[in-house]
């Protein structure tokens, strides 16, 4: 009797996850339905207008801002995250130095987004001004750099795992043929661990897409499609954070619809990464 109850309890808790996911999707879809029926789904994601007075809302500037900053951040983070992965998983695998490096990188992952934002605002932004990027320093470039620092830990810790499970026999075979470290990495480790590393970078991209506070503080918050790296803009997450408080009616629904788009975008990116990892593990 008690056992049965306990089993139901376990099952019930798992069902709660189902309910939770269903509830999240339901809440987002039902609240944004008004927007899609008012503007039409494709009109909403293609329109560049964001006009509270005339109640015209379009998501394109924010979608492009999100994609642009995240992809740039990913590009910036690749050389660093990849180096960390090689440092910890190949060159100094299992040594004290590697342990120190990986715990420092782990701690970097623990820094709250808002603290990154502050640091970017007060320390990196003046740099941007000095470099002559633009008058205020805000913009796509500044937010991508900070985003890149934020996602390095995610990309590097997973790729380290993939690189460190490359079988020693394969590497030793290459060494015995006279290959240098670099050649072993290029011809053995990367082909073996490549898709896993690729998947970890995709996961890091998923992280970057949803980052809110740091980007909100650094991107400049203008509702236009960023034309170049020095331009200011807004991301889907930052427009929600900025305007949700005072929004109502159609604007509120538009912001919730933006949340739905962001949810779908990150879900797709994460699914792709998980799918690749599943293939690798087989």
């Amino acid at each position: 009797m008690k056992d049965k109850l306990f089993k139901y309890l376990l099952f019930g808790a798992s069902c709660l996850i189902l309910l939770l996911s269903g509830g999240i999707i339901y809440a987002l879809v039902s609240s944004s339905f008004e927007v899609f029926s008012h503007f039409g789904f494709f009109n909403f994601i293609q329109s560049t207008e964001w006009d509270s007075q005339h109640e015209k809302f379009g998501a394109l500037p924010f979608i492009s801002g999100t994609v642009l900053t995240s992809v740039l951040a990913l590009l910036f983070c690749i050389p660093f995250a990849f180096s960390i992965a090689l440092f910890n998983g190949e060159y100094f695998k299992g040594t004290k130095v590697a342990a120190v490096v990986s715990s420092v990188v782990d701690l970097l992952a623990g820094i709250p987004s808002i603290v990154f934002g502050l640091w970017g605002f007060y320390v990196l932004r003046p740099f941007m001004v000095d470099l002559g990027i633009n008058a205020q320093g805000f913009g796509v470039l500044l937010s991508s750099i900070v985003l890149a620092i934020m996602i390095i830990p995610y990309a590097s810790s997973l790729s380290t795992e993939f690189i460190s499970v490359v079988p020693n026999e394969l590497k030793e075979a290459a060494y015995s043929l006279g290959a240098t470290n670099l050649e072993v990495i290029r011809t053995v480790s990367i082909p073996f661990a490549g898709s896993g590393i690729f998947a970890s970078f995709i996961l890091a991209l998923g992280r970057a897409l949803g980052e809110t506070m740091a980007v909100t503080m650094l991107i400049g918050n203008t509702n236009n499609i960023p034309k170049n790296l020095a331009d200011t803009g807004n991301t889907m997450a930052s427009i929600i954070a900025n305007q949700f408080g005072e929004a109502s009616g159609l604007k509120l629904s538009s912001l919730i619809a933006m949340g739905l788009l962001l949810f779908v975008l990150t879900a797709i990116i994460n699914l792709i990464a998980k799918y690749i990892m599943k293939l690798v593990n087989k």
Partner: protein
Amino acid sequence: MSSTLQYRRAKDKVFLCVVCILSSLTMIPLFLILWELLKKGYKQINLSLFTEVAPSSMDAMLARISNEPIPGGILNGLSGTILMLAMAIVMSIPVGILSGIYLAEHKDSKFSSVVRSLTDLLQGVPSIVVGVVVYAWVVRPMHSYSAFAGSVSLAIMMLPMIIRSTEESMKMVPGTLKEAGLALGASYSTIILRILLPAAFGGLFTGSLLAICRVMGETAPLLLTALGASAVNLNVTEPTSAIPLLIWEFYNDPNLANLVWTTSLLLLVFVLVINIIAKNIAKKWKIQ
């Protein structure tokens, strides 16, 4: 031949150097951030930080003009964070551990794999989207921002981490322990609660601490759910402040800018210390 060998060796060395340089560059931001917070934040560290609520913009401006430290502290944020974290823990840890046990006990069932994928999905949901959802679930029906809404959003973000760490640490427990329990005629619930759970406790504890760490600095969902308050509030149906929300307020108000560093320093120290403790516990339990 020797020249190409030299060339290959040189290339190898250069690559190693590049890897080392890039790796060490990556570690710099952590120390730069810590340094910046310490340098600008230490002035405001005093007892009143923990005993008084955040000052009004006016008081801060007067203090700034007369070149005194800003009066007041962050008690309203501290109490709000503790309140919401406590509620989030109560909501997420039991459910997370139970469904983690379910996943570990039914490894190959179809239902488990669905739940597992959904857990991954939940883990990937951006924090601001969690805020939007909880706004629609809790804030709109209650017609008010509240500490309860804030804690629900934190709980949703903690849940996937707790489930995964429970499942992983339950899997690490050797099957022979379970068989020994069965051989003694123990019931299913006794085996799980008295044998498997204590054996997996280290992993569970670490996972929960890391989950708490992750949500402690979350600002975005709280902006949409708890909103913030200028006084200490322990009523769960009222808007409540939190440490990250205070940082956001201070950041937006030039008069309070001095306080922003101290508050961030405090938050960062909390987060990093819990992080380090959690990692050390994990290490200790792995050896045993």
